[in-house]
C-alpha cells in the first residue's frame, strides 16, 4: 500500500469559552478531543456523526483555518500543523474544500471567472493570461457548466450550479485531497444526485482523495471507501464501508444506522431509539462518552474510556471500534453478530 496522503494523529481542538467581566477563559469546548485517521491517495474517507460531534472542526483543522490545540497533521509525509503562514502556502494548494451552503460559499461580488482564477493566480499555476483563461474554461467543462457562464455572477445560478462552481474552485488548485464539508447536504434530492455523481466521476478521473464529512449515511454509503464515525469529539469506529454497514461494531453506529428513515414503507427492521440528547462537549461524560445513551452500557463504561481496537469481522480486516463490549465473550456481546442488514432493512 502506498503512503497515505493525509495522516492525522491525536488531533485536538479545544475552543476557549470566554466569560466574566474581563473576558477570562472559564472553560473549554472539547470540540475535537484526540482523533487519528489516515487517508490513502485516491481514497474517500467519510466522517459521519451528528451536529456538534466535531466532524466539521476536523475538516477545518486539516485546512489550517485555525491553529490546533494538540496533535499532528501530516500531508504527504510533511507535517503541516506547525508550519508558518509562508511555509504553509505551497502546501495549501494540495488540500482544498467544498462547503455545504452553496449560497454563502461564493463571494457574491465576484464573477465566476475571478472566483476560479483566484487559486490559479495564488499558486502561480498559469503560465500567462491565455493559459489562465484556458484553465478556467477547462474547469467549467470539468464541472459540466457552459464555458460562457464565467462572466456571470453567483446569484445568477441555482444551488446545484453554485455547488459545481464551488467544486471547480477547489479543483482549480489541482489538489490531492478535497475536504467536502456536508457538500451535498443543502441540496434537493434530484440535484444532490447530480453532484454526488460529479464528485464520483472527478475522483475517478483525477485520482483525488476525499474527506467526505456528512451526516447522511445513505449518501456516505454510496460515496465512500471507508467510514469513520464520530461522537462527541472522538472517533468511535473506523471501518471499510461494507464491513461497517454489514456489521457495525459500536453501539452508536448501530443506533445511527437504525435511525435513518428508509424509503421502503412497511420494511421490517430492528429499531434502536436512543434515549436523551448528545451531552455537551463543554463537559463530556467520564469513561466512554456514549455511556449516557448506550443501551448496553455496563459499569466499566462509566469509568474507563475504551480505546480504538481491532475487532474481528467476517468481511475484512481494518475494522476498529472503541467499545468495551468486545472484551467480553461473544455470548455477552450484542455486537458480535452482523446485524447491519436487519438494521437498515436491506
Amino acid at each position, binding site marked *: 500500500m502506498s503512503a497515505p496522503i493525509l495522516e492525522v494523529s491525536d488531533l485536538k481542538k479545544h475552543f476557549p469559552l470566554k466569560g466574566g467581566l474581563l473576558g477570562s477563559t472559564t472553560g473549554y469546548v472539547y470540540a475535537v478531543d484526540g482523533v487519528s485517521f489516515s487517508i490513502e491517495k485516491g481514497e474517500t474517507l467519510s466522517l459521519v456523526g451528528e451536529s456538534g460531534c466535531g466532524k466539521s472542526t476536523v475538516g477545518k483543522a486539516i485546512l489550517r*483555518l485555525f491553529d490546533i490545540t494538540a496533535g499532528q497533521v501530516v500531508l504527504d509525509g510533511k507535517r503541516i500543523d506547525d508550519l508558518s503562514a509562508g511555509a504553509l502556502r505551497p502546501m495549501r494548494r494540495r488540500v482544498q*474544500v467544498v462547503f455545504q451552503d452553496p449560497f*454563502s460559499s461564493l*463571494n457574491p*461580488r*465576484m464573477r465566476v471567472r475571478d472566483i476560479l482564477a483566484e487559486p490559479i493566480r*495564488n499558486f502561480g499555476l498559469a503560465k500567462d493570461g491565455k493559459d489562465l483563461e484556458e484553465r478556467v474554461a477547462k474547469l467549467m467543462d470539468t464541472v459540466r457548466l457552459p464555458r460562457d457562464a464565467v462572466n456571470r455572477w453567483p*446569484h445568477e445560478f441555482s444551488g446545484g450550479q453554485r455547488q459545481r462552481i464551488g467544486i471547480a*474552485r477547489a479543483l482549480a*488548485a489541482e489538489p490531492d485531497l478535497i475536504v467536502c464539508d456536508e457538500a451535498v447536504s443543502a441540496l434537493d434530492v434530484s440535484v444532490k444526485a447530480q453532484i454526488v455523481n460529479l464528485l464520483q466521476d472527478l475522483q475517478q478521473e483525477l485520482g483525488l482523495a476525499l474527506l467526505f464529512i456528512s451526516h447522511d449515511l445513505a449518501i456516505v454509503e454510496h460515496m465512500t471507501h471507508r467510514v469513520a464515525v464520530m461522537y462527541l469529539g472522538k472517533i468511535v469506529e473506523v471501518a471499510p464501508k461494507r464491513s461497517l454497514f454489514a456489521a457495525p461494531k459500536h453501539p452508536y453506529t448501530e443506533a445511527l444506522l437504525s435511525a435513518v428513515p428508509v424509503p421502503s414503507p412497511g420494511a421490517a427492521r430492528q429499531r434502536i431509539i436512543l434515549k436523551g440528547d448528545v451531552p455537551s462537549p463543554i463537559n463530556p461524560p467520564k469513561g466512554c462518552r456514549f455511556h449516557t445513551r448506550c443501551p448496553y452500557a455496563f459499569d466499566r463504561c462509566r469509568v474507563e474510556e475504551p480505546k480504538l481496537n481491532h475487532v474481528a469481522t467476517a468481511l475484512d480486516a481494518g475494522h476498529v471500534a472503541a467499545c468495551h463490549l468486545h472484551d467480553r465473550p461473544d455470548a455477552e456481546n450484542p455486537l458480535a453478530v452482523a446485524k447491519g442488514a436487519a438494521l437498515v432493512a436491506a
Partner: protein
Amino acid sequence: MASATVLSPAQAAPPPGVAAAAPMPDVLPPVKPKKGFIGFIRRNPTMAIGGFLLLLMVLVAIFAPLLWTTDPTALAPARRTREPSAMYWFGTDMLGRDVYSRVLYGARVSLIVGFSVAILSSIIGLTIGMISGYIRLADSIIMRIMDGLMSIPPILLAIALMALTRGSVQNVIIAITIAEIPRVSRLVRGVVLSLREQPYVEAAVAAGTRTPMIIWRHILPNTLAPITVQATYICAAAMITEAILSFIGAGTPPIIPSWGNIMAEGRALWQVKPYIVFFPAVFLSITVLAVNLLGDGLRDALDPRMAKRL
C-alpha cells in the same frame, strides 16, 4: 416551426383520448415586469422618492444664487419682519433679510455638512473597523476607546469640540465626524467579524489568498453595502446635529446663513412671526426625510435576503 403544430388548450382541442388538465384561471392580474428606469422606480419606490427629493435639494443648493430674490446677507432694517408676500415669499427676519433667499442658501451648508460627515466618517470608520476586525490586539484597545466615545452623546461631544475651536463650517464638519466615527467603526468591525466566518472567505484562505488580498477582494466589497446604508443615516444625523449646533450658536458662524441659525434668529419672535422658524424647519425636515428614505430604499435593495424573497 409551423404555427399549426403548436397546440394549446386555449387554441385547439387536445387529440382524442388525451386527458388534458383544465386550464387554471388567473388569480391575480398579470404583472408586466418593467425594465429600465420605470422598473427601478416600481421596485424601489422609497429609494426613488428619497432620491428625487434629495436631488431637488441638491439642485436648490447649487443654483441658489440664480433662484434667490435678493442677497441673503443684505440687511434692510426698514422692512423688518414682513409677513410672507409676493415680494418676500417667506417673509423677512428681524434684520430685514429675505428668509426665502436665506433658506435656499442654508441648503448649501446643510448638504455640505451632511455629505462631508457621511463620507469622512465612513472612510475613517471603515479603516478603524477593518483594523479592529482583523488585528486582535488593536481590537481590544480601539474598541475600548470607541466605547468611551460612544458613552458621550454625539451632540455633547460636538459641542465640546466646537468650544475648543472657532465656529466655521469646516470645524463643524470635523466635530460631527469625530462624534460619528465610533458608530461606523463598530458596524464595520461587526460586519468584518461575521464575514471572516463566511465559507467563501474560508475557501479563499484555503486557496492560498494572502490576508491583504482577502481584505481587499472578499471583505471590503461586502462591507460597502452596509456602510453605504449607514452613511445615509449618518448624513441625516449630521444635518440635524449641524442645525442644533447652529441653533445654539456653537456651529456655523452667524454670517453664513444655515437652517440652524435662521431658526435661532427667529426663535425670539416665534410667538408672533412663526414663519421665520417654520420655513427652514420644513426644509430641514424634508431633506432629512429624503436622506432617510434613500437609506431605507438602499437597505432593502442591497439586502440580498430581501431580494431572494419570492
